[in-house]
């Protein structure tokens, strides 16, 4: 991204873009303050589940005019991401990318176990695990209790025909049978010994690098991490269909313009020029392990040449985003993310933990409605 910004600055002598990178944790706490104080950025990139919150808090402004001025329409983007940028009938985000979960497999070990194809469904995955165990990989599929366990849960519950929230994002629905089934499937690997228990944050990725964990579900961006490991033979595939239909968690980075820029027409024009320019060149961004939202880029030969990204891009029709409701991103952590953690660590039964978390989520959602007037 830094190189892109430098090139942009070189080509546009009348516009200077200064880039600042923040940890996401800091970002959502700091940027709103900075924007309110007039000391923040004019343009920012944020995650889809934070878009509605920041729109409701008036950190970011509607971009319908900007989109029509740039002649950007649904035809230019994948429909899922394009519609995800809308909150209360107004567009706030111009999609930059989509980043789904993917299946990563140690193909060296899997090949040695006599399996040539990456598993695409439940039976194939369970067979691969069994074959790996027989070939001497004791624990081939590490089920973590933390990130990205709740993202696996989101994928699974949708595959089993359930959902995290209802379509309006008004109530939690993750304590359904589909939710319980999803968690039971995950914990079955720990019970059978195919996964160690107590897998803490990053341990499953660390073990994948060390060639101990040979199957893992992780974000598309992790591809660059695996590529850094000498001697690791790995392959990527779409998240297998464990339930009845394909579904996969994904998020999307969306360009937003802050209320700070909206006060100045020049800044607004510059922001618009920058977003249009980057969007067309998002192939560079794709190389860092992202799928461009822009059709023209995603369908280009250059993108097709990016093997892993292309494989995981096939999941786009099946991605699941949260409803665009203000505050929804902050309901995740204290509710079902916590329940998933408790269940995988064997601290609570699936139904019990999900019920408790759903009650809490309903309270928080109601709270947010009152607060943001959604």
């Amino acid at each position, binding site marked *: 991204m830094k190189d892109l910004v430098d090139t942009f600055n070189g080509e546009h002598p009348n516009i200077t873009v200064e880039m600042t990178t923040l940890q996401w944790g800091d970002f959502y706490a700091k940027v709103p303050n900075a924007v309110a104080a007039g000391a923040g950025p004019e343009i920012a990139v944020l995650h889809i589940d934070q878009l509605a919150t920041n729109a409701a808090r008036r950190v970011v402004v509607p971009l319908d005019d900007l989109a029509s001025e740039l002649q950007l329409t649904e035809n230019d983007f994948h429909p899922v991401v394009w519609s995800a940028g809308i909150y209360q009938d107004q567009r706030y985000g111009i999609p930059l990318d989509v980043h789904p979960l993917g299946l990563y497999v140690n193909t060296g070990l899997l090949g040695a176990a006599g399996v040539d194809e990456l598993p695409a469904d439940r039976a194939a995955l369970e067979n691969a695990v069994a074959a790996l165990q027989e070939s001497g990989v004791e624990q081939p599929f590490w089920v973590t209790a933390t990130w990205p366990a709740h993202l696996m849960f989101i994928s699974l519950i949708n595959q089993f025909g359930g959902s995290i929230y209802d379509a309006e994002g008004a109530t939690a629905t993750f304590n359904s049978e589909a939710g319980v089934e999803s968690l039971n499937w995950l914990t079955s690997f720990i019970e059978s010994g195919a996964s160690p228990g107590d897998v803490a*944050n990053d341990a499953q990725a660390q073990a994948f690098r060390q060639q101990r964990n040979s199957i893992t579900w992780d974000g598309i961006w992790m591809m660059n991490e695996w590529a850094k490991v000498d001697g690791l033979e790995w392959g990527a595939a779409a998240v297998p269909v464990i339930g009845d239909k394909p579904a996969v968690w994904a998020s999307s980075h969306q360009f937003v313009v802050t209320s700070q820029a909206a006060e100045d027409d020049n800044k607004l024009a510059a922001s618009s020029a920058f977003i249009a320019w980057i969007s067309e060149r998002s192939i560079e961004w794709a190389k860092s392990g992202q799928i461009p939202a822009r059709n023209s880029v995603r369908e280009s030969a250059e993108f097709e040449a990016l093997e892993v990204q292309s494989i995981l891009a096939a999941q786009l029709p099946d991605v699941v985003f949260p409803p665009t409701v203000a505050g929804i991103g902050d309901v995740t952590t204290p509710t079902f993310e916590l329940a998933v953690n408790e269940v995988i*660590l064997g601290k609570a039964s699936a139904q019990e933990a999900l019920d408790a978390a759903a009650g809490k989520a309903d309270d928080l959602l109601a709270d947010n409605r009152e607060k943001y007037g959604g």
Partner: protein
Amino acid sequence: MAETLRLAPTRVRRGLPGARGRRAGAGRANTVGLGTALVFLLPYLVLFGAFIVAPIAYGLWISLHEWDFLLPGKPFVGFDNYVELFTSGSVSSGPFWAAMRATAIFVVLSVPLLVSVPLALAVALKRRFPGRNLLRAVVFAPYVLGVAVVGLLWRYLLDPNVGVVNYYLGKLGIDPVPFTTDTPWAWLALVVPTLWWTAGYNMVIFLAGLQDIPRELYEAATIDGASPWQRFRNVTLPGLRPVMVFVVTITILASANVFGQPYLITQGQPGRETRSAIMQIGEVGLRQFNMGRASAMSMVLTLALMGISLVTLSFLRERKARR
């Protein structure tokens, strides 16, 4: 014995032999005028007011509202945020009290170690022997690290499946211990790094305190036939009392404000069992932007800490008065 011992804290506090004389003149200072005193106090009072009193008052004000600084409406809700905290089953009470409980457990487990181990180190490193300064530096060194470094370092050391500690335990034939994902181990994973990290700070304060205990007292005790333990018990400990009050109080406060260790090492796992009060306040205030609720939580935590500090102070003072 008791009579001589009381001298030590007195000297520590007043510093100079002339202190007594100055105190006699205190009455005169009153007649010089309140104005003079105020002028001297003013710089401090300005800072104290701007950075302590005003934020507390503002926080109190926020806690009476449903407050999101970016939303135009900040409805006044009176004591609702507090009532909610004390109503079981409400949105905020369950997680908050769970976090307070976790914080209390951490304080109870960490403070005794954070006081006794540095004290032992200080006594040991007060003696003269070759390499003493190097050892002092080694003990103090971790304190200069930031909590992020400490947290990440220990998280990887103690990881249940890929950590170094379990690797070596495995070599000894011990099954992997879920240090960062299950209680009671998780408390160990929080207390030990904290001890390693901050013991040096308390040790330095104790060392300074030890320098102020007159050597004659030790000599007298030795002549009276006191054993090393008796000297420690009857000379060192009473001599350190003012320092001890300070160390115990700040250590309790520091432990009660624990954030980085559970945030990085255990991430509050399992579930929310090791999630500290500050983590919870941060999540509610800075993630969910419910600053009113978070401020109310902070106020409750502050009051609890003030109460505990008063109890600690009176406890340590009372013992002094009894002597």
